[in-house]
């Protein structure tokens, strides 16, 4: 057994972020600390951090939210960005991901931010180009920068700004996070379920069998499945709701009304079972489907804060990818 050649960490450039499971806790801590430091820098100083550096955004899938977040982060640090998307004509028809990556490298890109419909595509791009690659969402796999921004949001809300500069094994001890919805197709759910237990959290995944198979338990220790949303809410200090795509339900033996009745975070359900819990949603939301507008806009919601944390965390990830800031001397 185990005689197959599996890719080693050294195949990927330092500063890559392909899966959150590859990032040790000390590294998470360093990213959080650098995020706070960059956020507190004067604007002019921040704009010098990546001056003269070139970052490519390679988007095979449209995503206004993630793309804008990364793009603004890079620009605020002074980097030159170039966007290559399947909507523009810049992705040559039929050209392989490898060749597109090599072209971007030849044009001077020092780091590639990749969004791709195929799970694992960032690994391929990182192997083929040798450049640091930031996974901005790959297929049904992961969205690691989202997990980091969710972590920062949770730490800030539960323990204060100072606590959000470090990650320790017990930072989230005693905290239960319920993630509810279409877990099967959610890269946000996977990344969070892989990251949060490293800090001591329990992650309770919630949803019907069709959207949450038992194999999800394979994500690791600290992850469990609870089919009853009310029961999950009773235990949760944090509730993360996931977007339900109606077209996905169409192929399954699920009807929307039934789903909404069982799994919507309605204000009635929220008040009854988890009134003091923190509410998260990676967006974009379907108000009235997975979440009630009243809850989304209510005082327990941190949904817009997530967006702000996203910009900050992605700044630190870019600085890390390009070996700048506090990561300058780090040999990964």
């Amino acid at each position, binding site marked *: 057994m185990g*005689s*197959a*050649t599996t890719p080693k960490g050294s195949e990927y450039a330092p500063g890559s972020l*392909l899966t959150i499971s590859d990032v040790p806790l000390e590294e998470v801590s360093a990213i959080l600390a650098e995020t706070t430091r960059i956020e507190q820098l004067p604007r002019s100083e921040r704009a010098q951090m990546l001056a003269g550096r070139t970052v490519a955004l390679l988007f095979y899938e449209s995503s206004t939210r993630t793309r804008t977040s990364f793009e603004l982060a890079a620009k605020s640090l002074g980097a030159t960005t170039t966007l290559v998307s399947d909507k523009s004509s810049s992705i040559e028809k039929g050209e392989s991901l490898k060749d597109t990556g090599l072209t971007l490298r030849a044009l001077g890109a020092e780091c590639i931010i990749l969004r791709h419909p195929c799970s694992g595509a960032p690994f391929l791009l990182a192997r083929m180009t040798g450049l640091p690659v930031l996974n901005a969402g790959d297929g049904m796999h992961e969205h690691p920068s989202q997990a980091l921004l969710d972590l920062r949001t949770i730490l800030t809300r539960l323990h204060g700004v100072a606590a959000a500069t470090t990650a320790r094994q017990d930072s989230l001890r005693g905290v239960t996070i319920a993630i509810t919805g279409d877990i099967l197709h959610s890269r946000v759910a*996977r990344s969070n379920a892989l990251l949060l237990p490293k800090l001591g959290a329990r992650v309770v995944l919630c949803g019907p069998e069709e959207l949450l198979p038992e194999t999800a338990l394979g*994500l690791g220790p600290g992850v469990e499945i609870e089919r009853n949303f009310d029961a999950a809410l009773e235990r949760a200090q944090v509730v993360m709701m996931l977007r339900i795509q109606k077209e996905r339900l169409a192929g399954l033996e699920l009807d929307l009304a039934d789903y909404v009745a069982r799994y919507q975070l309605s204000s009635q359900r929220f008040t009854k079972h988890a009134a003091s819990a923190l509410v998260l949603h990676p967006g974009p939301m379907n108000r009235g489907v997975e979440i009630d507008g009243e809850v989304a806009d209510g005082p327990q919601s941190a949904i817009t804060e997530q967006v702000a944390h996203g910009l900050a965390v992605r700044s630190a990830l870019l600085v890390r990818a390009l070996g700048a800031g506090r990561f300058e001397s780090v040999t990964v």
Partner: protein
Amino acid sequence: MSDVLILNGRLVDPANGIDAERDLLLRDGRVAAIEIPGVLKNVAAAETIDASGCIVAPGFIDVHVHLREPGQTYKESIATGTAAAAAGGFTSVIAMPNTVPVNDSVAGLEWMLDAARGSVVKLFAMPAATMGSMGIELSNFSALRKAGAVGFTDDGKPVLEDDVMRAALVRAARLGVPVSQHAEDTRLTGGCSMNAGPVAFRLGLRGMTVEAEARIVERDIRLLREIEKAEGLRPHLHVQHVSTARAMEAIRAAKREGLHVTCEVAPHHFTLTDEAVGNYDTHAKMNPPLRVEADRVAMVAGLMDGTADTIATDHAPHAAHEKEQEFERAPNGITGLETALGLTLRVLHRGQGMTLSRVVELMSVNPAHVVSLEGRGGLAVGNHADVVVFDPNTDWTFQATNSKSKSRNTPFNGAAMLGRVRFTICEGRIVFSN
């Protein structure tokens, strides 16, 4: 033709009940003499092989290879694929029909088997069971059989429709050849790229379930039973590359029932599990996919207890640029001819205590039976002089760059192997020596 003398080896020939020191004389492409040491030592031969410390066995037979010619010779050709076979100790290979175009006609079959293709070992073929392997209209079984077909298969795809598979089994039974089935209910595997389970979930890949394989095996076994009852025929189902415990159990039960079912297991399925996919390593992408440990163990058990009849490689070469793609887009398959013996000896012989005689059964005797190859799979006097000489004790490391195949798509690059092929002799000609 010049004589070849093989001296000082240990002859393992289960077909003739021999496992002892014997010297062999090969003459005119046939086995001319088998004698106890000393008797043949004064025979003058053009070639004398000293097989000291080695096993002398009937040449290996692979009932399942993809040679990519015609149509995709950038991946492999009949010449390069059979050179890889010779390097692996194989003296006969059976080419699958999923070439471009699909091998579904007498003209296509004859073209493939023509000496002009440059086959290094004995080449046989299973043409498509249905025209274009589309699963609708049967190919011309009797004409193809006359032209040399040793069985029929739509490999790469299943024969999905019950009535088409039933008709194929009936027609093949009348000709005395097997229908070889790629057991995959493709209605359950659309968009799937690996085994269903925790690893697929973590990687965010859609998974092929155990049911998708087992359902077709169970359906085919039911058809055998129905045909035997209704037609008084005895059809032969050969199940290709079994990968799940459930399918293996169905085959075990069918054999106990007395139905004519045979099956093959590929070395990767008794060696690796779906964990080998690692971070989307496309060299671990094949169909059927690598399964979980319990399935791997069930493949070993099936090979040990006789449920599995043969080891077949499913040698499936692909060019580097095809495997250097997103996992879900990369083609299925790995090369396998040069690693089959090394893995079998390491995992089954050393790891599980399988006797060398059983190894030879799985790689020579039984595959010859599956496709009824006359005068092969055993070394009786008068048989074809198809011989492999291998040393069963050398530990070595496989390097894909040294492969005779045109392609390098293997998860076993750098992997430990046990036992080395020293000579491969096909119809009396030395086609590989090391």
